[in-house]
């Protein structure tokens, strides 16, 4: 467990520069050598309405999950920040603007509402920014300066972060931001005698590999680029839009293309078309867009065409809660669409896995000639983590397509029945390998055929193929110390980090508990999961959905009902909630 574990929130209104300040804070702390896990929450409205919150957890060891206890709150807007008070630890530090533009009443002042143990540090954010630059716009930077002084973080780390962000915007903007930060740092350094914590005193691991700060969205993008992505088709939707934005810049530089389509149906259609033609392609969407794609996904299943689809889940159903997180597309990803349309569904649990699994999804799609769905979620897409710079090996980049050999030239059967279910796939244009591809049920040669025997045979082939993919899918990973456990926690996606933190905490207290990470959602490693379940008296599956979608999928492997912990708050799963549930099962 970390010797230092500090959770910092910045809260303000849209337009206060809250998210920008959070990004700079994360970058600076990562630069100072701390592990970072951070997440922003902002309203659906673009600007002018609603609360923005950045939540960052810093420590000297890897951060597994966000904490629901805040040690430091930087309030850029007291009225909005009041909502964060219940999350403050008893002796939290609150850094706030003590010279708001106008007088405030008690209900508008955070100082009127915090508990008496909370330590208040008031700074005139706006006045100091105006002193430094002639404008109050830099008040968020002043606040960061105050934080740096209070927690004894060398300004150089913030300077570097500020330069990285603002240097591209020109000297004037960069200079103003640096001046605002420095003014806040000087003011707080003189005014506040108390130093709640010296962050620079935290020991850093010697020789540790350089770590970078990456969001899930950027990691997905890098994974796709490392896989040799050639074409991206998409339609904007929160929280997947940044993937298209990043690729719009990066892909053309590598000879690829990004095209914004008229909708999600055309996006998946274009992805299938690209893979059909032998080019790696991808689309990214969220629940409502994914729903539109389902028919063509099943077309990919039936016609055995690869595709890579990122489903960045958000709270639903329908348009739902666009800026809130949830894990409620599992059933749609695994079962969505007409017919028995088995496909591969994988779900990363952290930012590093966003890279790893996106990269892998291209090979899986090619080898098993099927759409592969990467299930991320709003929290995972938008959170940033300090992680080792991901790099793809040649093996990970390699083309996994099984091409037909010369012996079948001129009598090529595109959908030939094989033991593995995988039929060698020709690319249109290959001389002597002409074939018919269709969404209708078809014969081995691709000719439509609705006969009972053919449909049965071909359905079995397609499912055999998908089940066979298990050999290339990452198996579940157990985190346990005891052969027999009182409670085993099985989790997937972004919830797994919280589950592991809860389990490690429980193990530290001597409890016989363990965790199982599942990243291969479909097909899944039933025997591995069953073996883990057999070691546990009780199985708990925490999920950010109401129906218990993973529980419904794998719960039958346990001899009795599994315990469920389902939350639909739109917020990440707190480790404390899982820990609390574990206690009730003991």
């Amino acid at each position, binding site marked *: 467990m970390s010797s230092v574990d500090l959770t910092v929130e910045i809260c303000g209104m849209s337009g206060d520069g809250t998210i920008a300040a959070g990004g700079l804070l994360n970058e600076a702390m990562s630069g100072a050598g701390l592990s970072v896990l951070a997440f922003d929450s902002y309203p659906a409205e673009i600007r002018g309405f609603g609360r923005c919150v950045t939540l960052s957890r810093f420590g000297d060891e890897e951060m597994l999950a966000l904490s629901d206890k805040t040690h430091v709150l930087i309030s850029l807007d007291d009225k909005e920040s009041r909502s964060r008070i219940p999350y403050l630890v008893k002796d939290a530090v609150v850094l706030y603007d003590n010279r708001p533009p106008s*007088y405030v009443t008690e209900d508008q*002042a955070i100082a009127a509402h915090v508990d*008496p143990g909370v330590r208040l540090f008031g700074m005139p954010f706006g006045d100091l920014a105006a002193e430094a630059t002639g404008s109050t716009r830099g008040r968020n930077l002043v606040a960061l300066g105050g934080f740096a002084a209070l927690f004894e973080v060398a300004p150089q780390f913030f300077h570097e972060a500020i330069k990285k962000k603002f240097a591209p915007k020109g000297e004037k903007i960069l200079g103003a931001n640096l001046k605002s930060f420095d003014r806040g740092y000087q003011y707080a350094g003189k005014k506040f005698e108390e130093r709640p914590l010296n962050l620079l005193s935290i020991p850093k691991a010697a020789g540790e590999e350089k770590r970078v700060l990456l969001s899930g969205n950027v990691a997905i993008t890098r994974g796709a680029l490392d896989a040799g992505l050639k074409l991206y088709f998409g339609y904007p939707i929160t929280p997947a839009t940044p993937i298209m934005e990043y690729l719009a810049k990066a892909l053309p530089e590598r000879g690829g293309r990004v095209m914004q389509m008229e909708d999600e149906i055309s996006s998946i259609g274009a992805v299938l078309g690209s893979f059909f033609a032998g080019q790696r392609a991808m689309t990214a969407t969220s629940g409502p867009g994914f729903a539109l794609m389902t028919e063509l996904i099943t077309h990919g299943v039936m016609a055995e065409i690869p595709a890579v689809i990122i489903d960045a889940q958000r709270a639903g159903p329908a348009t739902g809660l666009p800026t809130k997180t949830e894990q409620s597309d599992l059933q749609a990803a695994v079962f969505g669409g007409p017919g028995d349309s088995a496909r591969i569904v994988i779900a990363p649990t952290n930012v590093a896995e966003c890279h790893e699994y996106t990269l892998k999804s291209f090979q899986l799609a090619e080898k098993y000639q099927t759409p592969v769905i990467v299930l991320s979620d709003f929290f995972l897409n938008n959170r940033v983590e300090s992680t080792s710079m991901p790099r793809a090996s040649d093996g990970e980049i390699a083309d996994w397509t099984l091409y037909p050999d010369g012996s079948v030239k001129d009598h090529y059967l595109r959908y030939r029945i094989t033991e593995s279910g995988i039929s060698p796939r020709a690319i249109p244009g290959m001389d002597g390998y002409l074939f018919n591809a269709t969404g209708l049920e078809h014969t081995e040669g691709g000719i439509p055929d609705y006969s009972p025997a053919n449909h049965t045979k071909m359905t079995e082939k397609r499912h055999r193929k998908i089940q066979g993919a298990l050999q290339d899918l990452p198996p579940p990973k157990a985190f346990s110390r005891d052969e027999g456990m009182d409670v085993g926690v099985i989790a997937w996606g972004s919830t797994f980090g919280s589950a592991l933190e809860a389990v490690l905490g429980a193990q530290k207290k001597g409890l016989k508990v363990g965790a199982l990470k599942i990243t291969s959602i479909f097909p899944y490693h039933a025997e591995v999961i069953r073996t883990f379940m057999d070691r546990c008296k009780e199985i708990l599956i925490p999920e950010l959905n109401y129906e218990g979608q993973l529980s419904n999928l794998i719960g039958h492997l346990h001899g009795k009902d599994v315990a469920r912990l389902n939350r639909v708050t739109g917020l990440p799963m707190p480790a404390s909630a899982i820990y609390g549930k574990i206690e009730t099962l003991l």
Partner: protein
Amino acid sequence: MSEEHVVIIGNGPAGNQAAMSIRENDPEVRITLISRESGACCRPHLFPDLIAGKIPEEALYACPIDAYQERGIKLRTGQEVVRLNPEERVLMLEHKEVVRFTGLIIAVGGRPRIPEPLLVFQDLMFTLKTLRDAKAWVKRLSEVESVLIMGGDLPSLALTKALLEMGKKITFLFNEDAFWPLRCDDALFEEVGERFSLKGVEVLANRPVKSIARKSEETYEIEVDGRKVEAGMIGAFFGLVPDIRFLAGCGLRIDRGILVDEFLNTGFEGVYATGDCAQIYHPEIRDYWVSIGHDNAVALGHIAAQNLTGGKMQAVMPLESIFEVKGIKVNTSWWMEF
């Protein structure tokens, strides 16, 4: 909760007691206790024991911090009132927050007094008014062996005893105006000096300080009347002055403290002052008196609370306990302790 809102400024012994007594009298009224200090109410007369390591920090508190919440008292720590309008019944905090009240008790206590000639050396001196001050003493004493104490007010006498027990070398620059707002009479002045000398304290009486210089991390050099004294730290103990600068021009009558009648009322309905910051009218001697000391503060806090909640209790100390020195009448509960 009723619409009544009682605000108490200051969470020293007087303010804390006032809040508790109001709650006892009225379980419904909204009470806000605003304190510039962090944490719960401390009993400052125990600071010397804390410094000597005789008691833990928890023992300083008059009540645990959770007790305020349990009693429905909103304690606002680390927040400073900067302006008051008793007529309009509003006050303003440093962060531009406006708070309305129906009743007010001012119990801000005092702040350490540094005589004007020594103000230039203020940054080099340790005072002992708050818990933060006490912690600063603990930290510095762990690094040094010798202490120079200037002044000679009541807390300094207790602290000197504690420092002697800790084996520190003490030089006492005893000053006759240390009991500000009164001065020691000659007999007392001599007696204290003799007692300390007997205990190994080097007493230098009424010597003016010419300069203070930092010789090294561990040592200060103090030039006193032509003589140089070295010490690891310097304590300033010249009494307290009511901390009422924020009341300037607000309409309250101010002399050395806030002038109040024998019921602790300031002249504005529902606005009271109590504890060390009040100068209280005594109808028998027809003059104002000031109070020093923890027990007095608690008693006065209780009286202010009674009167704010409809009582009619006089803050009249027995005449024999009030003594007059150089024209100022003082009652102190500490006096007999030393």
